[in-house]
C-alpha cells in the first residue's frame, strides 16, 4: 500500500511537470491549428535565459523566471511576425517543415552561444531539499511544480472559457473570416495567443529544468514527449491535456517501477491503445 502511494505521488508530480511544459503546445496546436514542433525550442530558450540570469547576472529565482518568460516572448515576436504568420492555415506538413527548420536554427545558435554543456538554474533555498509526506519524502521543487501546474491549468481554463478574449479566440479558431467580419481582430488574437503559448513554454522550460535539464538538444530530445501528451489529451483542451499528463505520467511511472526494462513499451503501447479508443484524443472536440 505504501508502495502504491509512493508511486502515485511520483506519477502525479511527473505528470504535472509534463503538463506545465506541454500546455503551451496545446494552445498553439489546438486553438491556433499550428503543428508547432519548435515548442521545445522556446522552452529551451526560456531555460537558457533563466540560467544566464541566475548564474551570470546573479538574479533570484523569481526574477529569473519572469525574465525568462518575457525574454522568450520578446524573442518570439519577430519570429511570429516573419515566419509563423506565413503558415497559419497552411497544410500540416508545411508547418512541420517550417517549425523543424526553426528548431534546427535555434539549436545551432544555442550550441554556438552557450556551448554544449548542461545548464542548471539554481533553486532558491526554500525549494531545495525535500519535504516529508509522512510515508516518504518528495523534492520540494516538485511540490512547487505541482502547485504551478494547477494554477496554470485553472487560469487558462478561466481565460479560454469565461473571458471575452476566450470567446473571441474560440470564434477566430472556429471560423476566422466570420469572426473578422464580426469585428474581431483575428491577427491580434492570434499574436496574443502565440505570445501566451510561448510564455507558457518558457515558464515550463524553467520549471521543468530539474527534470529535463537545459542543453542545446533539449528542443529535439523532448519534442516527441510534448507532442504525444498534447495529442493524447486532444489538442486545445485544457482538461484533456491535464488528464493525459496524469494518465501517461501514471502509466510511465508505474511501468518504470514494475518493469523498468520494458518501460518504453508500456508508455507507447498505452498511447496506441488510447488513440485507438479515442481517435480524437481524450477530450478532442468533434470538428
Amino acid at each position, binding site marked *: 500500500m505504501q508502495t502504491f502511494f509512493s508511486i502515485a505521488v511520483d506519477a502525479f508530480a511527473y505528470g504535472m511537470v509534463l503538463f506545465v511544459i506541454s500546455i503551451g503546445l496545446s494552445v498553439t496546436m489546438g486553438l491556433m491549428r499550428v503543428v508547432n514542433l519548435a515548442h521545445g525550442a522556446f522552452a529551451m530558450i526560456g531555460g537558457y535565459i533563466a540560467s544566464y540570469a541566475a548564474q551570470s547576472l546573479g538574479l533570484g529565482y523569481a526574477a529569473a523566471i519572469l525574465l525568462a518568460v518575457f525574454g522568450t516572448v520578446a524573442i518570439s515576436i519577430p519570429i511570429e511576425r516573419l*515566419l509563423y504568420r506565413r503558415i497559419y492555415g497552411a497544410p500540416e506538413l508545411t508547418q512541420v517543415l517550417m517549425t523543424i527548420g526553426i528548431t534546427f536554427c535555434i539549436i545551432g545558435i544555442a550550441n554556438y552561444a552557450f556551448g554544449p554543456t548542461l545548464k542548471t538554474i539554481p533553486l532558491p533555498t526554500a525549494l531545495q531539499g525535500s519535504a516529508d509526506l509522512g510515508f516518504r519524502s518528495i523534492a520540494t521543487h516538485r511540490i512547487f511544480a505541482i502547485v504551478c501546474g494547477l494554477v496554470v491549468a485553472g487560469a487558462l481554463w478561466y481565460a479560454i472559457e469565461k473571458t471575452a478574449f476566450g470567446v473571441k479566440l474560440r470564434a477566430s479558431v472556429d471560423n476566422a473570416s466570420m469572426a473578422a467580419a464580426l469585428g474581431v481582430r483575428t491577427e491580434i488574437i492570434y499574436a496574443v495567443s502565440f505570445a501566451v503559448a510561448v510564455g507558457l513554454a518558457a515558464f515550463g522550460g524553467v520549471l521543468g529544468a530539474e527534470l529535463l535539464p537545459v542543453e542545446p538538444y533539449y528542443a529535439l530530445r523532448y519534442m516527441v514527449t510534448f507532442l504525444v501528451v498534447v495529442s493524447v489529451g486532444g489538442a486545445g483542451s485544457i482538461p484533456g491535456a491535464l488528464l493525459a499528463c496524469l494518465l501517461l505520467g501514471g502509466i510511465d511511472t508505474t511501468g518504470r517501477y514494475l518493469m523498468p526494462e520494458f518501460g518504453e513499451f508500456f508508455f507507447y503501447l498505452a498511447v496506441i491503445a488510447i488513440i485507438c479508443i479515442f481517435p480524437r484524443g481524450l477530450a478532442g472536440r468533434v470538428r
Partner: protein
Amino acid sequence: MTEETVAVTARQSRSIGRDLLGIGAIISAAAIGYLLFPDNLALLTRIIAIALLVLSLDLVTGYCGVATLGHAALFGSGAYAAGIISAHYGIADPILMTLAGIVGGAAAGLVCGVIILRAHGLPQLVLSIALIYLFHEFANKASSWTGGSDGLSGISTDPLLGMFEFDLWGQTAYFFGVALLLAVLMLLRVLVRSPFGMLCRGIKEDPLRIIAMGASPKTALIKMYVISGAVAGVGGALNAISTQVVGLDSLSFTLSAESLVMLVLGGGGSLFGALTGTVVFMLFEDYVSAANPFHWLTMVGVLLIAVVLFAPKGLYGTAAGFVACRREKRP
C-alpha cells in the same frame, strides 16, 4: 464533361512524355553523379537507399494523405530482414537479400498500416511516432538477432550475379542501387496512374465520396501501405547490402522525421518531387556538414525555412507549377 475527358487525355499523353523525360533525367543524373563523384559513390548509394524510403513515404503521405512520422519502421524492417538472413542464415546473394528486404518491409507495412489508419490528423501522427519507438525498442531488446545497439554486423554479401564484388570503391553497390531505383520508379509510375492509384488519390481528396462510390478506403490504404513497405524494404536492403551493417538508427524517429522533411522539401504527391527532395537535402547536408562539422545544423534549418517561404509547394512542386503556368500562358 467531354472537355474534361479531352483535358485528361492531353494531360496523360503529356505525362507519359514527362515520364520518359524523367527516366532519362535520372539515368543522366546517375551518370553525372558517377562522373563527378567517382570517389564518393558510398554517399551516392546512400542517397539512393534513402530516396527509396522517401518514395515509399510519398506513396502513403503524398498520394494518400496519411500523416506519418514513423516511416523508418518499414525501411529498418527491410534492412534487418536482409541483414539477418545474411548474418544468421548465410544467405549472401544480393538479389535474395533484396527479396528478403521486400518481404520484411511489406510485413512491417501491413502492421503499421493496420494501426496507423485507425486515426486521422494529429493523433495519426502520434500513433506513427509510438509505432516507430516500439519497433526501435523491440530491435534493441532482440539483441541476439539484431545486435542491439551495437548494430548487426557480420553481414557478408556475395558478388552480384556471381561477377561483381561489393568492394571499398562501391561501384557495384552504386550500379545495383541505380538499377533498383529505376525498376522501382517505373513500377510506381504505372501504379500511381492505375485505377488503384487514382482511387488512393480520391481517398486523399474526399474519403466520403469514395465510400459512396462503393469502394473501401481502408482496404485500399492498407494495400498501399503494404506496397509502400515493399518499396522501403528495397531501400533498407540496399543499405544493408552496401554498408554490410544495420544499426538501430535505421528504425529511428530521426530517420522518419528526416525522410518526411525531404519529402515535403521536394514536394509530396509526385515521385520526382520525392527524388528531388532527397537529393537536394542529402547533398546539401553532406556539403555543409563537411564544410563546417560543428555548426552545420543552422544552415539546414535556414534551408528548410527558405523553402517554406519561397517554394511552399516544395522544390519540385513549385518548379513544376511554374513551368505549367508558363505553358498555359502560351496560346
